[in-house]
């Protein structure tokens, strides 16, 4: 919308900075807001550089773990006993740690150190690093990471992203990294104090397409020079390691950039939801990295890299939607209106039945896409469909969750308003995580 007469008048008022007039017109807030918008990109924090990554041992070739074996070709929805054990412990952690701290972490816009170190006790990072590099992984299972994401997302999505973010970097390095890249970065993830790390793909561009990035990487001799801005990067101010997607002359690529690199800084632009992830814009101004920092070898598949991230968001949404469903069932049975529980009304009960249908619909599409990915089959179409369905149904479930709690749902006394804000992210985010 073009600036009209009111707009020009406001501009004039602002220039005059006539405080009494502004207050009389009740416009101070509005004007202040405009001023804030203009200056917010000015806020910067430098990124973190707390350690030196160095190779303990050399690898002759990249360590590529095989997928867990399948003994039959039968359709089978069972998970393994080991996966069930992991699910049980992650679900317990989600219930006892993430859920009670959800509101506080959302308000603080970060996941507390206590929570992150409690998450480390689950040992998830060890499963992201191959045995030969100090980890515990003998196989690479995106399905297991997906189940973990689902259960963490059941607890709280924002904190779940903060926990999964470094794991995603380790998973990506295990799946795609060159021998040198793996030897240099992966052992740290299996150490006592694994680094905070994040993947940066999404940009604050209208009609954003992860295949056509605005962030540019220009080759200069043995280096790449990166310029641009990434949006919604988890742990951006704290991470010691980033995987940053940028457009090169031969298409989109991903670069390993260490925190504290010159020209790399984190901005400030709080979002509607997933605030506990510590997300910030990541700004790249002539960030120079060696060409050896370009992720992967000949087998690198950027599309799969992106899709394994989008599917992680889908898995978080499945878990979070299950949380909404599990929350509204007892609420609607206990909440009384007109002398009986509101769950006795079809208008209420049918919304809940719809939630159950769609959360399982989401789960089926996500599980299928990830299981195909794990088996080394093509999963581009399946990932597209999973995301397409999840972004619609997750938001429907998010908004119905608030609706069923009525006025209560709109307040911070209940978690559904946060879930409503968090679930909108699924339709917005591309990558940023990695199963």
């Amino acid at each position: 919308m073009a600036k009209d007469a009111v707009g020009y008048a406001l501009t004039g008022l602002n220039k005059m900075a006539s405080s009494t007039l502004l207050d009389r017109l009740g416009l101070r807030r509005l004007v202040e807001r405009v001023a804030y918008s203009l200056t917010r990109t000015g806020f910067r924090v430098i990124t973190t550089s707390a350690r030196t990554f160095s190779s303990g041992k050399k690898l002759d070739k990249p360590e590529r773990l095989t997928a867990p074996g399948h003994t039959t070709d039968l359709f089978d929805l069972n998970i393994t006993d080991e996966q069930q054990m992991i699910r049980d412990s992650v679900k317990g952690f989600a219930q006892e740690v993430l859920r009670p701290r959800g509101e506080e972490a959302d308000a603080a816009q970060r996941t507390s150190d206590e929570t992150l170190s409690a998450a480390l006790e689950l040992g998830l990072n060890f499963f992201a690093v191959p045995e030969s590099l100090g980890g515990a992984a003998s196989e690479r299972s995106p399905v297991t990471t997906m189940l973990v994401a689902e259960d963490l997302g059941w607890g709280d999505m924002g904190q779940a992203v903060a926990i999964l973010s470094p794991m995603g970097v380790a998973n990506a390095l295990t799946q795609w990294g060159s021998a040198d890249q793996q030897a240099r970065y992966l052992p740290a993830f299996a150490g006592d104090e694994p680094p905070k790390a994040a993947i940066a793909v999404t940009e604050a561009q209208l009609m954003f397409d992860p295949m056509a990035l605005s962030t540019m990487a220009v080759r200069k001799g043995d280096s790449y020079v990166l310029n641009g801005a990434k949006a919604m990067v988890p742990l951006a101010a704290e991470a010691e390691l980033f995987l940053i997607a940028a457009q090169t002359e031969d298409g989109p690529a991903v670069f390993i950039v260490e925190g504290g690199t010159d020209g790399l800084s984190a901005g400030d632009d709080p979002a509607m939801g997933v605030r506990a992830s510590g997300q910030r814009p990541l700004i790249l101004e002539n960030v120079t990295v060696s060409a050896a920092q370009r992720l992967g070898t000949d087998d690198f598949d950027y599309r799969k890299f992106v899709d394994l991230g989008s599917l992680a968001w889908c898995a978080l949404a499945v878990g979070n939607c299950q949380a909404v469903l599990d929350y509204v069932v007892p609420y609607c049975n206990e909440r009384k209106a007109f002398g009986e529980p509101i769950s006795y009304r079809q208008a209420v009960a049918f919304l809940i039945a719809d939630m159950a249908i769609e959360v399982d619909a989401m789960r089926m599409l996500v599980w299928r896409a990830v299981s195909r990915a794990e088996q080394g089959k093509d999963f581009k179409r399946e990932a597209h469909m999973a995301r397409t369905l999840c972004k619609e149904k997750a938001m429907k479930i998010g908004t119905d969750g608030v609706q069923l709690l009525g006025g209560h749902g709109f307040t911070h006394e209940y978690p559904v308003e946060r879930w409503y804000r968090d679930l909108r992210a699924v339709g917005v985010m591309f990558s940023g995580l990695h199963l």
Partner: protein
Amino acid sequence: MNFDLPKKIKPLVNNAHQVALSVFRPISRKYDRAEHEYPKELDMLASVLDGMNDGDPTSSAGASQTGKGRGKDTGTGVKNGANMTTCLGALELCYGDVGLLLSMPRQGLGNAAIAAVANDEQLERFKGKWAAMAITEPGAGSDSAAIRTTAKEDGDHYVLNGEKIYVTSGERADCVVVWASLDLALGRAAIKSFVVEWGTPGMELARLEKKLGIRASDTAAINFNDCRVPKENLLGNPEVDVAKGFAGVMETFDNTRPLVACFALGCAKAALDRTRELLAEHVKLDYEKPIGNVSAVEAELYTMEAEWEAAYLLTVKAAWMADNRIANSVEASISKAKAGRVGNYITLRCVELCGALGYTETELLEKWARDSKILDIFEGTQQIQLLIIARRLLGLSSRELK
């Protein structure tokens, strides 16, 4: 975890697909227009199917093969058995024509009921018979506990009295599985099913309905006036167990709801595939592009595809659970609710996307849009499925959540 279908199912799916394209599609419009005329082309096909059923149940496409634990037991591992193969076969056949599938001799829902609850003696006696299913009455639709047809014990017979409507292939079948009450005062628990063969005195065809869709499939209204049925034709346990209630007759639905969900999926897939063909020059499907950046028609096609796939997987899941003897009442209802509404939404939307071409009889799109409506109604309406799901989730009785 594995979502891809096993190789052993592929020949069946392919056979059914070939039948759909080579047998059903060419006569689809003919019997849509010639309502109540018997599709004689099906006789040959039915014989072929009978042969397949006798030879290897896992390659059959018929409803007679559903049921718990009737497939071959191959040890303790995971199974992909008769429920799954039957569902997938039916899906492919409905890709051809739902009405014609419903008209297939010896593949009626009555056959599914017999397969699910009959004892071995009955299985043998009714083998090879085409059995229709009669539940609905003028005063009892979704509320099957309100059935007023009675079955009074008299010597070695039950005497049936009542009026049944919406009996698919009711006239064409050899016999009808009739739901009737042994004692109206005892409610649902007293409702039993009886196999009544045509020719039994007192059983009389009242009329054949004219319908919105599935016109190739006849829908009969049948009256029973002092109709004497041999005692051994009662399916399941003749005892009235008030505590167990309705469970006996209702468990048939756990197998047949995923099957009807597959009808909806097959019909919708036909519409979606044809729409994509017709629109081929106008859309470029590219799964790399974010759905927010494509044309409205393309976005609609992606959305319909995702909805279809979700309904499909929920249905395969419900059938897989039945094959593996995992209680699946809720999942069966979920599959039916999702496939029923998605099927109806897709077929209607495809007509709209293709404009006048979709709305007129040159194409089959308008027919599929009419056919799909019944699939969100019979074997439990959308609303009944939602009630079942909600009651279970909320732990509420039918008195609390009405």
